[in-house]
């Protein structure tokens, strides 16, 4: 049998993609599989691929002894709050920079873009001292404040808002609508997709963030999942199965969120990286 050239390259590419997908997904599959094994089962040679007797023991231990449920809720609260704040501040500002004319707009916008080159870690030590002075160390507000507004978010919204027809806004203004009303009834509805994008971005970023909550949170009861996970992994190095169960609990929500909102996420990623 003979295949035409495109079919052959197509088959080769599909096989290539399949191989890469196996590499990309294998660690996640392995995590899930080991999380269902009996304690000690994974530390054998040759390393087992599938649990002999699938069990939820590790998950039970995690929730009952390691209180992972609490960290899960902490992460959920912090990420949701940050998402709400980020939506409120970035969306209004992004819209203003795109559609409203005000003194100093371009200058401020350009200055803001310039801050993108500064790595966030430069600000962290003084920010920590600032939070100490106002008593926000070891609070969730302290954790999420750096996410409340950001150049990236404002830029993202602005790029999208540029496409709102100015005539629509002008027309409403002619009819005597207040700026707030215009924002609520015209701007917000047309920004819905980018709201979802920005919301997903913020939520995932805060959920996955490690460096900052590691510094700010001292009380174990307030830990977010990644911080708790890092602490657990230092305490339970030998307990592979337990650690994999906690990795599942940490990763599963973001994977689900991503798969559901993929379209929005990837668009945001593209808008965000078009202009540096």
């Amino acid at each position, binding site marked *: 049998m003979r295949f035409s050239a495109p079919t052959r390259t197509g088959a080769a*590419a599909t096989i290539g*993609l399949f191989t890469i997908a196996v590499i990309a997904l*294998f*660690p996640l599959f392995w995590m899930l599989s080991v999380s269902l094994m009996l304690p000690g089962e994974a530390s054998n040679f040759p390393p087992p691929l599938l649990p002999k007797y699938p069990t939820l023991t590790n998950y039970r231990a995690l929730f009952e002894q390691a209180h992972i449920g609490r960290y899960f809720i902490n992460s959920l609260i912090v990420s949701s709050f940050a998402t709400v704040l980020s939506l*409120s501040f970035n969306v209004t500002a992004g819209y203003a920079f795109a559609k409203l004319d005000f003194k100093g707009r371009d200058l401020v916008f350009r200055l803001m873009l310039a801050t993108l080159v500064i790595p966030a870690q*430069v600000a962290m030590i003084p920010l920590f001292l600032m939070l100490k002075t106002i008593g926000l160390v070891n609070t969730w507000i302290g954790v999420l404040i750096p996410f409340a507004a950001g150049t990236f978010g404002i830029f993202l919204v602005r790029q999208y808002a540029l496409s709102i027809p100015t005539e629509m806004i002008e027309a409403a203004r002619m009819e005597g609508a207040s700026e707030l009303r215009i924002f609520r009834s015209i701007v917000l509805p047309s920004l819905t997709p980018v709201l979802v994008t920005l919301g997903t971005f913020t939520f995932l970023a805060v959920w996955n963030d490690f460096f900052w909550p590691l510094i700010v949170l001292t009380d174990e009861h307030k830990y977010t999942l990644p911080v708790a996970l890092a602490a657990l992994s230092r305490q339970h190095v030998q307990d*592979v199965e337990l650690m994999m169960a906690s990795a599942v609990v940490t990763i599963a929500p973001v994977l689900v969120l991503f798969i559901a909102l993929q379209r929005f996420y990837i668009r945001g990623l593209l808008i965000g990286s078009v202009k540096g």
Partner: protein
Amino acid sequence: MRHSLAAWAFAGPGVAIIAVFFVLPVAAAFAVSLTDFDIYALADLKNLRFVGLRNYIELVQAPLFWRALANTLYFVAIGGPLSIAASLGAALLLNTQAARFKAFFRTALFAPVITTLVAVAVIWRYLLHTRYGMVNFSLTSLGFPQVDWLGDPHFSMPAIILFATWKNFGYNMIILLAGLQAIPKELYEAARIDGAGNFRQFAHVTLPGLAPTLFLVGILTMAGYFQLFAEPYVMTQGGPVQSTLSVLYLMYEQAFKWWSLGSASAIAFILFLFMLAVASLQLLVTRRMGGAT
């Protein structure tokens, strides 16, 4: 006037947050880097001394700092290009007309990007286990010798690079894929008519067309890779023999383990300067190359 006021009411809060919680701390960081802020100063600000550039001078003389910088540059210089190459490969495959199940593959290949870094670092620590790890199992099954990935100072950084490539390649893959799709099909047609094979099409059509995107991806990757921290924090704790101690890890230890906040701020600034320098260099090289062709 009324417009301007309303506009500032919209833009103001966001801009103010950035100013207060980012710009101001950055300026303050520079000020702190000129002092010997340490635990004595933490106890009582009267113990704070202005030391000028001493923190910077001491860092430049400290072998540990150079070690951390060398490790970070190793990670950036090897890990960055490797990850971009992987992204490009995957993007090219995804861009193949006749390939099947592309939507599924795109999601699968992107999945590692959105996973929680700490959690997947924990997974990989076990996958890389010398005796019970899947990586070594596969190697020995293929007849290669066992590698002590996280325990041998020669292999610890390669291990982290492999892990980072796995974690990150999907991100650039998406951007590069968009870049590939933006290259006009006619250019390939024309090349084919001129008798160009796959390789020449890649060299003469794909690469030039993708150059701006590659440049962007290069800058983004470099900036991200300079900020190496969580991987060694979880997988090796900077060891063995400080072979995975990164600049940011050093800053974290200086700041929050030893409370030498002055010195830590200086490290942050040097890191920043390095990133700027490498980005400018990339820009320069790209301009040169652009001018030559």
